[in-house]
């Protein structure tokens, strides 16, 4: 319950901050990676900033763990192509960003290594991200955004064997493994 309250508080704070910063759209983020909230702020024609806060559900559908992680991403997106039809406007975008969070990571086991497969290894993650996607604008207040995001960074966690107080540092595997997990966001135009 305390975890949930903390997460709600974090969501609330970030939402308040970014709305004040001039957010134009608020979104509901859906992905096999997790669920969350997104805010988009236009900077200039064709360039926008996007902030996402999400609960990371890695390990939950497989019953490996019961509490989700928390992940944040901030991206700058450049529109590189645009196709307009009478029904939908497709705008393709890509850009760099930064991700951070407290999440679990995929641990590569040596053969059939149960210890690695079921280990509880929540830790801090910091990564550079790359995002590519397409936005579907239907002319109304709601639009959709489908994108893919890769994180290249590291994951710091407590020693899994539990026999020392030293931290383990490794590449954040999920950042690359989950690159092809689709991210669908329902965006609501605020202004």
């Amino acid at each position, binding site marked *: 319950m305390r975890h949930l309250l903390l997460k709600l508080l974090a969501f609330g704070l970030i939402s308040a901050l970014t709305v004040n910063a001039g957010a134009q759209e608020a979104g*509901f983020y*859906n992905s096999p990676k997790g669920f969350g909230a997104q805010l988009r702020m236009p900077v200039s024609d064709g360039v926008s900033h996007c902030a996402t806060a999400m609960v990371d559900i890695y390990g939950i*559908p497989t*019953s490996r763990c019961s509490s989700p992680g928390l992940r944040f991403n901030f991206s700058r997106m450049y529109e590189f192509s645009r196709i307009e039809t009478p*029904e*939908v406007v497709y705008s393709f975008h890509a850009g760099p960003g930064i991700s951070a969070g407290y999440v679990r990571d995929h641990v590569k086991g040596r053969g059939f290594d149960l210890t690695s497969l079921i280990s509880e290894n929540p830790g801090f993650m910091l990564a550079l991200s790359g995002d590519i996607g397409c936005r*579907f604008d*239907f*002319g*109304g207040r*709601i*639009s*959709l955004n489908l994108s893919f995001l890769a994180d290249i960074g590291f994951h710091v966690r407590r020693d899994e064997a539990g026999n020392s107080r030293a931290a383990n540092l490794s590449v954040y595997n999920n950042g690359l493994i989950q690159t092809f997990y689709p991210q669908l966001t*329902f965006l609501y135009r605020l202004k």
Partner: protein
Amino acid sequence: MRKLLLTISLALLLPQLAGAWTPRFSYGLEWGYTGTFLKTAQHNFICNEGYRIIENPTVLRYFSNGLVMAGAGADLGNNLNLSVYSGVQGIYSERLAIPLEMRVKWCPGGLHADGLLLMAGGGLSFPVKYPRETGFIAQAGGGYRIVLNRTMSVDLTARWNFTLDHENIIDPDTRRTVPRSLISSNTAEYQAVNLSIALNF
């Protein structure tokens, strides 16, 4: 035979003659969160010691699950949609099933307009783990439909879910699964609340 042919011809011709109504096919993708809060079960079996155990446990415990489904159907008129959905649905702790469900959606303001949505559905569920006896699912609820364009819409729904399933009965002495031949009755009912988002096109 002649009567049958006549009936088929009439059935095929009538909609053409009526002219006005032709069904519009619809497709949907849906995913959501299911919170199961109540389990009631009825067990009647012969245990390892040789005597009969009849128990009806009621478990008030909250379990989080999810669902991902896809469906296809048709709009029957301006307000009603009938679809068949299937996918993967979590029922309880480490219990997954593949549902096959018939679903009716009713939009009083029209299927292609923003507004209230009421829905009900029912069907079969096929568990992926032992015991694999087919279960039954039913649901009813409502929500809001947001129209994106002429063919696409988003449904935000909240609904009550009922699942009739079967359990893996454990013998109290040996802690092993009771064989099917020693079980007279084995049912479990789950009550849950579901929050879903659906994309229709």
